[in-house]
């Protein structure tokens, strides 16, 4: 087999979605149909099978969140909205439902104000959906490469090619760095959502009731800072810190 045939086969494999994806799409559509018939448990079964097959998408998580919400499982609904938000940080529907679900939670937590530079950074990091970011970066890269190709081969107007190369290069540097940070999860905290109805937060990894600091409820989002065997050190949005058992929450 020559190198060319291998390349062709690889490109074909990439261009066509893998066969199992069709089956997942059907599951998704069946789930949507059941959801519209208000069979939320049935819809959930379908959605979660897609998830078990190892696939994800913001839309899938969003629909799972909606189905859990309708099935009155607020904690899990918030968990899946958070997961959807991780993939599509600025999707208006996801944010609206997440906010509504949070407002129905028991705990009202006023977040600590953040340093403005972090706010700007976070805003920039979450500005683009993942696919758009990838597309823009790729477009910038291809533009820069194409312009470089023209420059090297002395084809076309050199001035325009140079401008295109510089513009593409800047785009790649800016968006590529953002994409790399997002893809590697650099500097991103682990978050979890409380699923148990009521959780006592301890001052140390111990069940001793005397060490209980405060109580949080299902649906509250926490940051996971440290973990020791069965215990997690969690930080609330308002800065309160304590330990909970690992099974009471699920990481986003």
């Amino acid at each position, binding site marked *: 087999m020559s190198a060319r045939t291998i390349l062709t086969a*690889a*490109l074909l494999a*990439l261009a066509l979605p893998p066969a199992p*994806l069709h089956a*997942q*799409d059907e599951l*998704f559509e069946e789930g*949507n149909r059941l*959801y519209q018939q208000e069979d939320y448990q049935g819809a959930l079964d379908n959605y979660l099978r*897609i*998830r078990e097959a*190892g*696939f*994800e*998408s913001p*839309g*899938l998580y*969003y*629909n799972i969140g*909606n*189905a859990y*919400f*309708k099935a009155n499982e607020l904690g899990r609904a918030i968990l899946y909205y958070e997961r959807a938000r991780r993939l599509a940080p600025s999707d208006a*529907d996801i944010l*609206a*439902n997440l906010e*509504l*679900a949070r407002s129905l939670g028991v705990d009202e937590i006023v977040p600590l104000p953040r340093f403005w530079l972090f706010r700007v950074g976070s805003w920039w990091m979450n500005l683009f959906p993942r*696919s758009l970011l*990838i597309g823009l970066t*790729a477009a910038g*890269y*291809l533009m820069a*490469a*194409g312009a*470089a*190709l023209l420059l*090297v*081969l*002395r084809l076309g107007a050199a001035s325009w090619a140079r401008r295109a190369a510089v513009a593409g290069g800047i785009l790649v540097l800016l968006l590529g760095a953002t*994409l790399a940070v997002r*893809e*590697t999860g650099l500097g991103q905290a682990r978050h979890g959502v409380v699923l148990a109805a009521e959780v006592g937060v301890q001052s140390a990894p111990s069940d001793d009731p005397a060490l209980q600091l405060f109580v949080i409820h299902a649906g509250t989002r926490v940051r996971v800072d440290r973990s020791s065997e069965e215990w997690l050190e969690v930080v609330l949005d308002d800065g309160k810190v304590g330990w909970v058992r690992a099974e009471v929450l699920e990481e986003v």
Partner: protein
Amino acid sequence: MRGVRVLRRFRVFAGGCAPMRRCTVCRWATLLAAVAALGLALAAGPTDAAAQQVSARAYLSSNEVGVGQQFVLNVEVSGAQGVDQDPELPDLSSFSVYLGSGSSSSIQMSGGRTNITLTIQYRFQATSAGTFTVSPFEVRAGGGAFTTEPLTLTVSDAPVPQGSSAAPGAADRGIAPEDLFVEAVPSRRQVYENQPVVVDYRIFTRVNVSSYSITQLPPATGFWVEEYPPAGNPVIGQTVRDGMQYTTATIRKVALFPTGSGTRTLEPLGIEAQVRVRRRSAFDPFEDFFGRGSLLNSSISTAAASRPVEIEVLPLPGGRPENFTGFVGDLEVAATLDRDSVQVSDAVTLTVEVAGSGNLRMLAEPEVEIPPGFEAFPPEVTERVDRTDAGVSGTRTYDYVLVPRVPGVGAIPPVELAYFDPERETYEVAASGALAVEVTGVAADGPLGTGRVRAGVEELRTDIRFIQLGRPALVLANRTLFAHPLFWVTLLVPLALVGGAAGLRRHRDRLHGDVAYARSRRAAKVARRRLAEARKLVDGEDVRAFYAEAGHALEGFLADKLNIAAAGMIRNEVRDRLAAPGVDTEAAEPYMECLEECDRQRFAPPTASAEERARFLGRVEAAMAAMAEHLAR
């Protein structure tokens, strides 16, 4: 000489004029008394006023009164002309109503001694039955402080005849409670919420009342009060009550609208009246002297108060209409437009007139449905209220200015007002007729040009947004971009392309600028062409031509590679080049052999067979390949 001479002058003031803050009248009266006393004292001979002892005591006019009757709390200070400070009375409001106060002073001369006595009288009306104690209080007079004894008062349900001996003050006045009293006469004893009770406060008198003033207005707790304007001169009537003829007059008239259900009490109204009386004392020298018109005795003051009256207020029955706003009484609604047709943007006035009896001031604005396409301004409200014996009635007029913005017919549905009719004990709805106005002209520009009134979108309930439909664009979970082959393809293919392009560019540049490079790169191609020519001659007759062509190919290839002129190439030079140090003999030897073979065959008899020539061509190609490989090193 008589042992005791009494000089007494009453000073009367209503409520506010206390002994210390003396008004002009009081001061004048005191002066008069002092002058009179001085004259008498001089006539009586030497006195010893300075040695007089100051003392104070309190006593009640009577220890037993009936509910609604008056009693007087007297504070008597002897040996001083006034008190240093108004005494602070204990709180008697649990069983009585304070009516007013007055004071009198008297100077007695007895056995060469002068006694000055000041009596302050506080008048109360008993309101509830039982036995009560007036706790001790302090009186400051003449530089000393005196504490009074506790006093006991029994208030009985039945009226107690008040003997003149029990109350020294009342004895002098000679006014019995049945001679002068006030009565509150409600129009009804049982009403619905918001149904008016007209209360007539009447004064009943058998004595000559020269004037009166209201000292205590009852608090109107639980009522909305509509006061009737006081008549300039009270209408005097004659009434026979308990076999006695009374002169009556209305002193106050109000309409009370109870604001809630339950039992309400009309609190007492207190008055202070000036009554002209004739002294009956046989020992009064002034009466003898001045006759009937005695300056000191012609008029005295008395107080009276009405008895509390209970009113039962019934709650409104159930089954209220939806638009009922609490109006009780009787209503009529009429709506009129000042014209039937109007131009766009011209104003038309809608007048809604609500007439009826009841608490019109509290009437809620009727809901007028403004037709779409009309701009409406807040109504101008005018009100006319008539107070009659039956209650309060009147009209309330709402003028709405409507400005049409679109042509068409604007229909105004009937204006409806629900009310409760206490006579029939049913809820009624008063409605006006439906109205319509024709609007002509062209629709006006502006926010209302569409005929719709803009309003915010009302949120009926909150719910999550709907699920995402369509393809979910699934990707493998937990796989970063770097794990995706397409990422690497996209990253590397352009890099490879640019790299290739750079190589190509370098190659072209050398072709253009470097003759040796160009010849060297061309050498193989030229040689191949010559060898192809030679191959055509393998089977041919001309053996010499074959070898000549092969020789050219060999010579040309080497000349191109070494960048020397092929035409002038001397075989020895080529040989020297090939034999030069650094040239591998393994490559040079076969090449030289081929060259020599060509030379030999070109000039020797043409004996080489076709097979031999073909074999030779193979050797040439091999030698060339070896040489190219050697030179490329």
